[in-house]
């Protein structure tokens, strides 16, 4: 009796997510095996592996995969390392801590499209941007960020967005750290580095796991920042898998190839998730 009630309570969530996963995914699988271009309707014959071959041999394919992974790893490293360092910094007492907290969390609330537009125009523009003005003030040649370092520009934008998230999770975690333990270590003559290394870092293991997991979910799918700032270019230099598929589907109207690409994205996400859930799962109590 009770069992059936609990199942009933779970049913809506489970069924909805099942439909949300199975229906589009099976459609994607089906589309990926047929010839399906929106410009040429009615020629939807079975083509086997051809769409996959076409997608894999696209000159952008391997670049997009490597860009996706570089973006993911760079942002994870930047946000976790800087996040831990800055959290340790603002965990100490100083004047105006609450205001600093508010300032630090703000970039997290900025929508990706606005984020990209601010950085692209007002920060990174090679003529009128703040960075250009700074380099000129130091007598240096201004850098054309989006053309010369497109992927790095995207990494900067995305890190800017996610660093506040990391900082705040870590600060919250540090506040729960046992102060008596720290004081005892201090009495025994431990340096601040030792306390940080042997007490604080282990204490942060679980929050780090949470940050890595949540960020990975969002970073594998970075889209708007690229769409608005570099448009994936120049060439394929800042195209990630999400953007490559988008290009294929909505700009070239080739649903078949885009669906094949979508399956590659699913595959890549699964590979990453496999390692991630194994590594992080241990740190999440269920």
């Amino acid at each position: 009796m009770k069992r059936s009630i609990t199942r009933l309570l779970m049913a809506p969530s489970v069924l909805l997510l099942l439909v949300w996963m199975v229906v589009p995914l099976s459609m994607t699988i089906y589309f990926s095996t047929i010839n399906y271009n929106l410009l040429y309707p009615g020629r939807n014959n079975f083509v086997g592996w051809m769409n996959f071959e076409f997608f894999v041999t696209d000159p952008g394919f391997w670049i997009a995969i490597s860009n996706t992974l570089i973006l993911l790893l760079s942002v994870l490293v930047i946000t976790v390392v800087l996040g831990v360092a800055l959290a340790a910094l603002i965990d100490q007492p100083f004047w105006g801590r609450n205001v600093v907290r508010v300032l630090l969390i703000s970039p997290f609330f900025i929508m990706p499209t606005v984020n990209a537009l601010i950085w692209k125009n007002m920060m990174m523009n090679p003529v009128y941007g703040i960075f250009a003005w700074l380099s000129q003030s130091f007598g240096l040649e201004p850098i054309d960020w989006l053309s010369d370092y497109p992927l790095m520009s995207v990494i900067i934008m995305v890190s800017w967005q996610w660093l506040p998230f990391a900082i705040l999770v870590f600060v919250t975690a540090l506040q729960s750290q046992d102060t008596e333990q720290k004081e005892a270590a201090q009495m025994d003559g431990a340096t601040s580095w030792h306390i940080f290394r042997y007490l604080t870092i282990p204490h942060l293991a679980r929050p780090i796991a949470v940050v890595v997991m949540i960020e990975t979910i969002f970073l594998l799918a970075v889209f708007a920042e690229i769409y608005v700032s570099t448009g994936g270019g120049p060439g394929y230099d800042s195209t990630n898998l999400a953007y490559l598929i988008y290009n294929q589907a909505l700009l070239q109207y080739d649903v078949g190839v885009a669906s094949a690409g979508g399956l590659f994205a699913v595959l890549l996400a699964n590979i990453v998730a496999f390692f991630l859930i194994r590594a992080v799962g241990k740190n999440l109590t269920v």
Partner: protein
Amino acid sequence: MTLTQQRKLKTILVGLAAWTVALLLFFPIFWMFITSFKTELQAISVPPQLFFEPTLENFSIVQERSDYLKHAWNSVVTSFGATILALVIAIPAAYSMAFFPGKRTKDILLWMLSTKMLPAVGVLVPIYILSRDYGLLDSKLGLVIIFTLMNLPIIVWMLFSYFKDLPKEILEAARMDGATPWDEMVKVVLPLSVGGIASTGLLSIVLCWNEAFWSLNLTASEAAPLTAMIASYSSPEGLFWAKLSAASTLACAPIVIFGWFCQKQLVQGLTFGAVK
């Protein structure tokens, strides 16, 4: 130097470093904000101008050009609609998993999270086609449905971790008094976890407000929320940073201010219960 002096010096140095970092990270937002009050000429002047005579002209131009209020309303409706819907669906599920865990509970939770790992772009085409066929393209209802499903796994997880931390004794006492699972949920669990539900809802609202992939691909002029409206300012038809900044400020201000007020709640939610 005495110990107190040393401590004082350290506090000052820490404060200095923290303020520097905070101001640097906040600078782009500050710059966007003040640029929105400049004329186009002032916006691109080199060296950048910090002091100038502010104008409100940009804001009225943005409202005229892109009908800000309509898009803002779309954002409000889709964010709040999807959040409420997702909470209604997720609360019973999280409750039943937290208080009546079975052998498969852990697997179900991990599976839910794994649906979140499924990249949106992998199912872009089918969702686009389904939305088109059911008349949900460029409609608020379509976005609400997508946003609900998109955030459901995270919402279930967060609620689950809150519910799990509630003291079990209270429930047992209620059960002794003959409460059914439904009574328990509505009369005991929900009142005790208002804070947790609020943080979950807040996070969901922020995620919906800033969602850009589906809103860019599935809406046009009618149902486009603010994220999509802003993207229309990315086309390089001349330099108009002041208007761009005004539009961006208008798009972000509601959620940033909202976030400032709720930051404590929000941070608790973001840690997924992994941090007490």
